[in-house]
């Protein structure tokens, strides 16, 4: 009874928030104890290693800043040109959060994040890490939220090939290092090593974030569609820090809640 009610009706929605806040202490306790063991490990890293790391980070920071200089000029130029065309691009804002060290349902690829409704996280909000798209929020609790990763078998994300703009949909396979592009014909112009980025179709994910790199293309003349696999760029299982993207409309400054999923 309860199963059917929960699955097919919205009856429990008002209670969800209360019920799921009961999970918060469980998550926190597990997270703290799991962090404690890694904290002990960190205590024993040597001074030299840390110095080495600082050196490396400084170097990469300099490189990134140098690249950034160009980017600021380019993006303002882009904005100017777009406003000339009267096609303003939606602006995006980033919010940093941390993942909690918790293992959820082994059936699915889910992660818990330490920000929730309190921090204006909404359902369907895309999350990224430093490398690429990770997934989207499926459930918002008061103080935490749960996100589905792009590799979950129930998840699909609209992408385009960076090189030529060919559009496709990348489905999760259930393996943490593989996405599949279904329904692309055998003569589609796609090669190994092509970068896939979000196409922004569907309205959930913003345009232009890297998603995956095509790892294998098998064209089978006997079948209608080619078998194309891709490897996600984001460090899905290892990232501790994630970033929320809030899309800011130029006309209405606040983001509206989105209730449907792109699944």
């Amino acid at each position, binding site marked *: *009874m*309860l*199963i059917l*009610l*929960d*699955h097919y009706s919205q009856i*429990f929605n008002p209670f969800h928030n209360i*019920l*799921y806040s*009961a*999970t918060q202490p*469980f*998550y926190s*306790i*597990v997270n703290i*104890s*799991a962090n404690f063991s890694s904290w002990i490990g960190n205590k024993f890293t040597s001074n030299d290693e840390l110095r080495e790391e600082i050196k490396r980070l400084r170097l990469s920071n300099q490189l990134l800043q140098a690249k950034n200089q160009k980017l600021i000029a380019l993006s303002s130029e882009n904005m100017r040109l777009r406003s000339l065309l009267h096609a303003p691009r939606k602006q995006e804002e980033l919010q940093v959060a941390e993942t909690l*060290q*918790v*293992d*959820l*349902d*082994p*059936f*699915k690829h*889910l992660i818990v994040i330490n920000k929730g409704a309190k921090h204006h996280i909404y359902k369907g909000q895309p999350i990224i890490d430093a490398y690429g798209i990770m997934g989207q929020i499926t*459930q918002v609790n008061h103080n935490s939220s*749960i996100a589905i990763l792009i590799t979950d*078998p*129930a998840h699909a994300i609209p992408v385009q090939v960076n090189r030529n703009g060919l559009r496709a949909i990348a489905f999760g396979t*259930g*393996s*943490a290092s593989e996405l599949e592009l279904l329904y692309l014909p055998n003569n589609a112009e796609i090669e190994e090593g092509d970068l896939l980025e979000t196409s922004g179709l569907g309205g959930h994910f913003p345009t232009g974030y890297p998603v995956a790199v095509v790892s294998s293309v098998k064209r089978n003349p006997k079948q209608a569609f080619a078998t194309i696999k891709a490897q996600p760029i984001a460090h899905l*299982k290892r990232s501790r820090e994630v970033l929320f993207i809030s899309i800011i409309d130029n006309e209405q400054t606040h983001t509206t809640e989105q209730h449907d999923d792109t699944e």
Partner: protein
Amino acid sequence: MIPNNTLPGQIVIIGSIVISLLFAIYPLPESIQSLRPNWPTLVLIYWCINLPERVGIATGWIIGLLLDLLMPTTLGLHALVLSIIAYLTLYFYRRIRHFPLWQQAIIIFLLISLQQLLLLWLRSIFGDIPLSWWSYWLNPFSSALCWPLIYFVLYFFQRYYRIQ
């Protein structure tokens, strides 16, 4: 002395259940994740065998609901399956109680296989597909192997606090 004895009893039972739920979501390396024993079910079965007048189907239902919230799965999924497991254990508890430990482990193996089967069946109705077939069925093995551990730890606490 009787009121003194009943209070820690409830605390020990609830405490063991809470700890088993914490173990159920404790992060493990991905390679051994599918070997994670089914701690909440093991604790439920232990108390059902040894304290059938205190722990039963209702407790199973509550543990299942908490698991549903933690995982998060469709509400009531684990609740239904764990109440069935509790019912079966209560049906056989007089026999199981006098089995040697290795025979109990076999019963545990069967019960947890049944649990996995029911979960798989119910979840496939809602379109959840297991990630890999063979690793899904490792769970009953590891749970049966961990049964003696659970048995001795909980038996110790039960004797220590004289929970009846």
